[in-house]
């Protein structure tokens, strides 16, 4: 009797594993089908459009584009602007990472979360705030709009948190005794950094740099608004070729080029990372951080805080202040103007309608992204840490990260050429924009949910199933309550991403249903202080909405699980 127990348990586990595998294949289906239809198909369509115009393989357009000096300039600018943004961002953010890694100070936890706000702020809002300071008639009196500096500063604004949080998280786990050992062995401070600290944080700096590079390389809203006529990235060029000149073939070729460059860089980066990574024993950050000791250290912290308030506080403050500063004095004039119906044409809709549209689309996108993200995360993390490494899970994981490396403009452009005609004509469907937003948000949702699911003790599930719960019941009674917090955070993130999404929306938006970023962009395109004021008022509203969502999700964020 006793000897038969292990046997029967083994058999039961086996049966369970089979059931779980089947169950996982089912949950893998919705996200993968969604990705296939709404991501792979559009991208393939772009490829074919570029390489096989009129149904015949033909590289002539390719050759034309590559030989065109204007296009060469665009490609060159995109590349060097992305490199410059990355280098600048890393340089200014490393001291911030060091501060978070090494020191304990009042308000540190809040600041760490608050850094996420600029990262998720809509590009259009940031562009408008930059115009408010360094644009024509900006408060500094220096007009940098149309120069590369405006673009670089805006890119640093967005990506500062990426570097600080990615590198800071690694840096904070480095055992200070390593640095102390080096000092005792005769290394002055700068050598401690060069010989010990830098080699240990290098791979996280590289990881952060690749993300910053990617975001800067595929930057759309910022360059469109701040770049003027002279500075255009591939993204802006793709948009112009499509929306202004209707040269879909050229746009397709540019999209293919961009895709190739992005993939090549990611592959190269992945390779170089594998060779370089140093694995070291990590310490918990609370063992390491300490209050500042010397005057120099206090000065270092203050300098960092001043820099952050200049970088983030000033533009956003100026935005809000100027949105209330009308030609007739302080007041809600620009806000009232948002409800105006006069716009010069019959198709004009009052900008205030955009708020409703944005909230509706964001809700729809959130529902899609969260439902699919849950299915995907469950496929990836499966039965907890032990059984999480199934090939299906790994495959799903990789597949879902790809949209992160592709630009929103590519998604929008792909939708435009695919879902415009049967078999799937969604051109007038309300779902088109939410689906595009969900594609953009899905990688973030999955990244937030997987660690939470992995943290579930598999014994809880086993306990529930031995008590007679079916797999779906186990999922509902064990997984869902535990993952609830991460789920709330993921939903908030998806909502915020959708609220601010501009690149894909610019391609797909119907004139009578603008979202908030689109309304802002339209207001910027009309001349006069009155319209600029409206753009600032709408930007302020969008910023407030985003901040509310982000601060709300931060309350649900599982502690220390993810860098994003």
């Amino acid at each position, binding site marked *: 009797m006793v000897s038969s127990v292990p046997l029967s348990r083994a058999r039961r586990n086996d049966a369970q594993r089979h059931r779980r595998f089947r169950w996982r294949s089912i949950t893998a289906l919705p996200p993968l089908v969604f990705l296939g239809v709404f991501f792979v198909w559009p991208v393939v369509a772009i490829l074919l459009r570029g390489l096989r115009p009129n149904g015949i393989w033909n590289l002539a357009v390719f050759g034309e584009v590559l030989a065109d000096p204007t296009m060469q300039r665009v490609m060159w600018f995109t590349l060097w602007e992305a490199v410059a943004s990355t280098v600048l961002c890393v340089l200014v953010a490393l001291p911030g990472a060091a501060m978070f890694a090494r020191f304990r100070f009042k308000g540190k936890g809040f600041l760490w979360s608050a850094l996420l706000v600029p990262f998720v702020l809509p590009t259009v809002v940031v562009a408008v705030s930059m115009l408010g300071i360094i644009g024509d008639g900006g408060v500094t009196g220096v007009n940098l709009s149309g120069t590369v500096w405006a673009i670089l500063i805006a890119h640093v604004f967005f990506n500062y948190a990426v570097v600080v949080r990615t590198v800071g998280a690694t840096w904070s786990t480095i055992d200070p005794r390593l640095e102390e050992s080096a000092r005792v*062995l*005769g290394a002055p401070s700068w*050598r401690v950094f060069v010989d010990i600290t830098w080699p240990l944080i290098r791979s996280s700096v590289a990881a952060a740099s690749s993300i910053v590079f990617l975001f800067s390389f595929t930057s759309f809203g910022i360059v469109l608004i701040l770049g003027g006529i002279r500075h255009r990235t591939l993204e802006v060029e793709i948009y112009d070729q499509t929306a202004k000149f209707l040269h879909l073939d050229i746009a397709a070729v540019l999209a293919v080029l961009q895709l190739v460059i992005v993939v090549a860089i990611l592959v190269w980066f992945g390779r170089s990372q594998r060779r370089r990574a140093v694995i070291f024993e990590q310490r918990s950050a609370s063992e390491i951080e300490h209050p500042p000791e010397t005057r120099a250290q206090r000065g270092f912290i203050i300098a960092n805080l001043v820099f952050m308030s200049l970088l983030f506080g000033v533009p956003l403050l100026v935005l809000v202040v100027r949105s209330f500063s009308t030609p007739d004095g302080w007041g809600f004039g620009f806000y009232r103007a948002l409800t105006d119906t006069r716009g010069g044409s019959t198709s004009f809709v009052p900008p205030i309608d955009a708020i409703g549209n944005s909230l509706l689309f964001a809700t729809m996108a959130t529902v899609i992204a969260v439902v699919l993200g849950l299915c995907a995360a469950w496929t990836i993390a499966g039965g907890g840490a032990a059984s999480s490494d199934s090939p299906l899970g790994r495959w799903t994981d990789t597949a879902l990260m790809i949209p992160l490396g592709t630009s929103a403009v590519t998604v929008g452009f792909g939708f435009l050429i695919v879902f415009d005609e049967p078999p799937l004509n969604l051109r007038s469907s309300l779902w088109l924009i939410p689906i595009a937003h969900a594609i953009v948000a899905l990688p973030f949702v999955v990244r937030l949910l997987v660690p939470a699911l992995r943290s579930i003790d598999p014994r809880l599930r086993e306990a529930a199933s031995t008590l007679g719960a079916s797999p779906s019941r186990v999922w509902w009674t064990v997984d869902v309550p535990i993952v609830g917090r991460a789920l709330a955070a993921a939903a908030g993130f998806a909502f915020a991403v959708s609220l601010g999404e501009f690149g894909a929306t610019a391609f797909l938006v119907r004139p009578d249903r603008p979202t908030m970023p689109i309304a802002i962009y339209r207001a910027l395109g009309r001349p006069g202080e009155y319209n600029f004021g409206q753009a600032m008022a709408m930007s302020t509203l969008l910023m407030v909405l985003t901040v509310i969502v982000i601060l709300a999700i931060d309350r649900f964020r599982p502690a220390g699980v993810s860098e994003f």
Partner: protein
Amino acid sequence: MSPPFLSLSNVNARHPGAESDVLRDLSLSIGQGEVVGVLGSSGSGKTSLLRVIAGLLPVISGAVVLNGVDITTVATHQRGIGLMFQEHALFPHLDVADNVAFGLRMNHVAKVDRSARVAEVLDLVGLGGFGSRDVSSLSGGERQRVALARTLAPSPRLILLDEPMGSLDRVLRDRLLPELAELIDQLGLTALYVTHDRTEAFELADRIAVMDRGSVIQIATPADLDAAPASDHVAALLGHR
């Protein structure tokens, strides 16, 4: 009697942000070539004592004098003191030879002399030929030896050992302790050896300093200490009943 090689007089020190001092009015003198064991329960300030001597923890008041020179405010990297941590703190991105060579490199020793010295020190700790090994591939005992070799390589004037056996199991400790004792003796090192284990202290030390609440409460040879503990607390630390 010759002047002490290392002396601390009335040292007070405090961890950054802490409410109270971790070292209180601590005085201690060590002669050249002497090995002093520092014994005390956890929280008594043993490690802080080493950190003050190495310059990793600033003093609030008092003085640290090494070989007749006041080093109280000298930067850590200019003190020429060796310190070995309990966790060994080997540099994970460097191989064994580069770990051992680190202090030589910082002291601008020429490359040729450096590799000769590395080989010599590795032989000394019984790890000849281990130079190109990755530190993550080492066993606990090997890590301890590499840490010791790294500390010894630049020929420090004084070495500080912070529970160097603390992360090893009993069997390994019993094997390595006599080896370490012999090495210290052979090289004529001046050393401070922190431990909470009385047998370790008794085996290695010429004299034993007993610490309690940030001060040295008794310092004597092992035999004298055993015969006449100054207080019940010292007696308890020695395992007397």
